[in-house]
């Protein structure tokens, strides 16, 4: 639970100095693309903030988002976020269970009325009265409605919560919906990703604590600091795209030389995320650097984008329409490559159909 002392005072008792705040804030300012001078303001804001009550609701999800946050690579810095918040309810991490757990949630809501933050991972089933996912006898929709009633803000973590994710994929048997459809006019932050980058989660929470407001968001409620650019924009293979050098298969000469993976289905041009800059596992790598195209896992409908290995312009749904504003219009080389890839795929399909017919 929260208490009246500031974070600075509470952590001081544990031997954590203001220097640690300054260092953490310099790190945060850097990853959130804030000017270095914002580091001092962040440190001061965090030190003077009260411990933030957080209620974490897990609905139709896989717990990957929690894993991402709790197993972040830089524990001495990233773990500070757990000193800054009071995680009053979280299925995976809390010791309490059953009625005791539900009582802890309601107690936190009462004690921190109007000030607590609700973090949600997972989508919410709405079909057949929402019976496909229930907790303590409550449907996910009812629990969400009750819990956000007096919340200061809602943070939808992961693509399932932000955009529906896997449960929302066609044919969406549970009638899953993203959190945005159920929160009304509550302030909402979407931190999509499957899972999201841990720095995006901790950075957003720290910004909220330090400045008392949510960071600047885009039109899909994503923090611009982490989702302001596409993977393609910041991809180290981008120069190969510009030169029209594309891998045609995962084991050809182009793949070995690290050429662009656009023709192998990379969705980088429409994927707004920070993987190409922050990377994973402590800045070690990200999917494209490991030789695989981007799935655009932080984008709406990423499961239904017409095949992970189809080039963008081969897709037949919203993802392809999004592309008009993304890569193809501004890059004739890319568009030509997509056309050629499509033609190659058509030829391969025709060849395989002919072979099948010959066999029969």
């Amino acid at each position, binding site marked *: 639970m929260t208490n009246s002392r500031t974070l600075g005072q509470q952590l*001081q008792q544990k031997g954590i*100095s203001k220097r640690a705040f300054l*260092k953490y804030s*310099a790190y945060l300012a*850097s990853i959130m693309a804030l*000017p*270095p*001078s914002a580091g001092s303001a962040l440190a001061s804001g965090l*030190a003077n903030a009260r411990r933030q009550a957080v209620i974490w609701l897990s609905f139709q999800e896989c717990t990957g988002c929690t894993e991402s946050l709790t197993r972040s690579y830089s524990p001495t810095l990233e773990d500070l976020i757990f000193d800054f918040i009071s995680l009053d309810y979280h299925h995976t991490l809390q010791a309490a269970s059953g009625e005791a757990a539900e009582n802890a949630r309601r107690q936190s809501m009462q004690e921190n009325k109007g000030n607590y933050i609700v973090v949600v991972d997972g989508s919410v089933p709405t079909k057949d009265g929402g019976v496909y996912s229930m907790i303590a006898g409550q449907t996910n929709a009812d629990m969400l409605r009750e819990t956000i009633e007096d919340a200061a803000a809602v943070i939808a973590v992961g693509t399932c919560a932000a955009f529906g994710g896997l449960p929302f994929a066609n044919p969406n048997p549970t009638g899953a919906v993203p959190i945005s459809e159920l929160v009304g006019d509550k302030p909402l932050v979407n931190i999509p990703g499957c899972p999201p980058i841990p720095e995006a989660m901790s950075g957003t929470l720290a910004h909220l604590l330090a400045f008392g407001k949510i960071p600047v968001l885009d039109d899909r409620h994503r923090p611009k600091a982490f989702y302001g650019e596409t993977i393609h924009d910041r991809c180290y293979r981008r120069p190969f795209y510009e030169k029209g050098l594309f891998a045609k298969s995962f084991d050809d000469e182009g793949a070995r030389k690290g050429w662009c993976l656009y023709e192998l289905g990379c969705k980088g041009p429409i994927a707004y995320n920070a993987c190409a800059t922050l990377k994973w596992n402590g800045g070690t790598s990200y999917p494209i650097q490991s030789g695989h195209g981007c799935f655009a896992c932080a984008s709406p409908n990423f499961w239904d984008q017409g095949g992970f290995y189809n080039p963008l312009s081969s897709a037949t749904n919203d993802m392809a329409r999004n592309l008009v504003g993304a890569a193809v219009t501004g890059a004739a080389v890319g568009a030509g490559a997509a056309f050629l890839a499509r033609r190659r795929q058509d030829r391969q399909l025709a060849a395989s159909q002919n072979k099948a017919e010959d066999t029969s």
Partner: protein
Amino acid sequence: MTSLINNALPSPAETDLTGLVDAIMQELAGLLDQLVTSGEGGAIDLRSLPMTAADRNALKSRLGTGEVEATLNVAGISRIQETGIFGIWWIRHEDADGRVVNEQIAVTQIPAILMAHSDDIAFAREQLTLIIETGSKLEIDPAVQGIAR
């Protein structure tokens, strides 16, 4: 495979000079002017700039090495080095695993992280009183030792 991919990094190569150093030197000159006239400095986040290794080495070389060097053990090692230009400091923060999490050049009389904060000093005074009165020694929670000191 991975080495082949990494070796295929696009230009500019790490050995290329991009011209960024000249721009940074001009910005530092402006910040130093500001520090002299108004007492207010500033900082440049080096990790936000597309610098090559050659750029970084050239910048270090042009700024030189000054009189003060400090190492802090706060949630990992931090190294602070005054450059040969008084008031310009090269600051490099690492996490507990030695990963660089922030690198910046600060223009200031002394980087704030080097100074003991007044709140910490007040708390330390209470601790010292307790140590004197009880004849005990300073205890640090092992769970936070890596973060605190």
